[in-house]
């Protein structure tokens, strides 16, 4: 049996407390030129690890961080809902140890512009983050080594 998939549609996605999370998977091919942007990122951030992931609008950073790369979540309200209802606790960067598996979110003017997953703590350098850059590729980078470096950074962890 074959399944017909719409080019754009929401997935059934809920928090631990069963609140629906607004999202949309976009299976359309990416706009021409995204590959050029990825090439430019490789030049602009030569010390980051640029994963061989093709351009896609199927998922964004929040979809990677909070929905296993399945979909695109664009609303800050949805991310705040996930942080609250999935029992994340905020970690103080200066007084607590950031660990692999923790979450980073980038905030600016009430928006959560970017997020990622801590994959490594590098002595003297800080956490390395795995994140997806919009429609572009996945990058492993230090917190300031990305286009969202002017945002405020917060770290979260699930402990239960």
């Amino acid at each position: 049996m074959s399944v017909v998939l719409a080019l754009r549609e929401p997935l059934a996605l809920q928090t631990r407390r069963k609140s629906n999370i607004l999202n949309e998977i976009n299976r359309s091919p990416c706009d021409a030129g995204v590959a050029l942007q990825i090439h430019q990122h490789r030049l602009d951030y030569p010390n980051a690890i640029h994963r061989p992931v093709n351009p896609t609008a199927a998922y964004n950073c929040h979809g990677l961080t909070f929905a296993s790369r399945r979909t695109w979540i664009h609303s800050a309200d949805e991310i705040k809902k996930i942080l609250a209802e999935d029992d994340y606790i905020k970690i103080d960067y200066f007084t607590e140890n950031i660990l692999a598996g923790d979450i980073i979110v980038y905030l600016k003017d009430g928006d959560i512009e970017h997020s990622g997953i801590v994959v490594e703590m590098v002595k003297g350098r800080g956490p390395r983050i795995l994140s997806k850059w919009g429609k572009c590729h996945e990058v492993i980078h230090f917190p300031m080594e990305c286009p969202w470096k002017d945002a405020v950074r917060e770290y979260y962890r699930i402990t239960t």
Partner: protein
Amino acid sequence: MTTTKINYDSAVATFAVANTPMFLLRKLRSDSAVERLTQLFSTDKLFSDLVASLRKKPENLTDAVEPYALLVALSRNGNLALLKELLKYPAPFSEWFSEIANILIQTSMPLTTTVFTPPQYLGAERNNFATNSPTKSQSVSAKLDH
């Protein structure tokens, strides 16, 4: 010159990495392409080119970001009625268009001049205030531009 001749390179770079409409809007507000559009083109031209760009299926990232850049440029004249009018147009290829337009409507203030006439002669002449009104008021203009 037409609005399509503007260099959209930095706006394109922003659009490619935008995870949220708010990020796209924040970056476009300070983008050089938007600045040029505002300087070079009339409101009527921006409006007509924006309506045309909404109908056109994007062939590349420049086409995709153009409606948003034109929208932000158009919002700078403070004409809320024009922004509300734009919401009537379908935007089949610009998924964040109505959300960004609504944010601009909610956060923009019309560019109007409000004249305040502060009371004078308070203090020493307070007793005479009721009968000794100032003959020459000092006006303060406040430009509301958010």
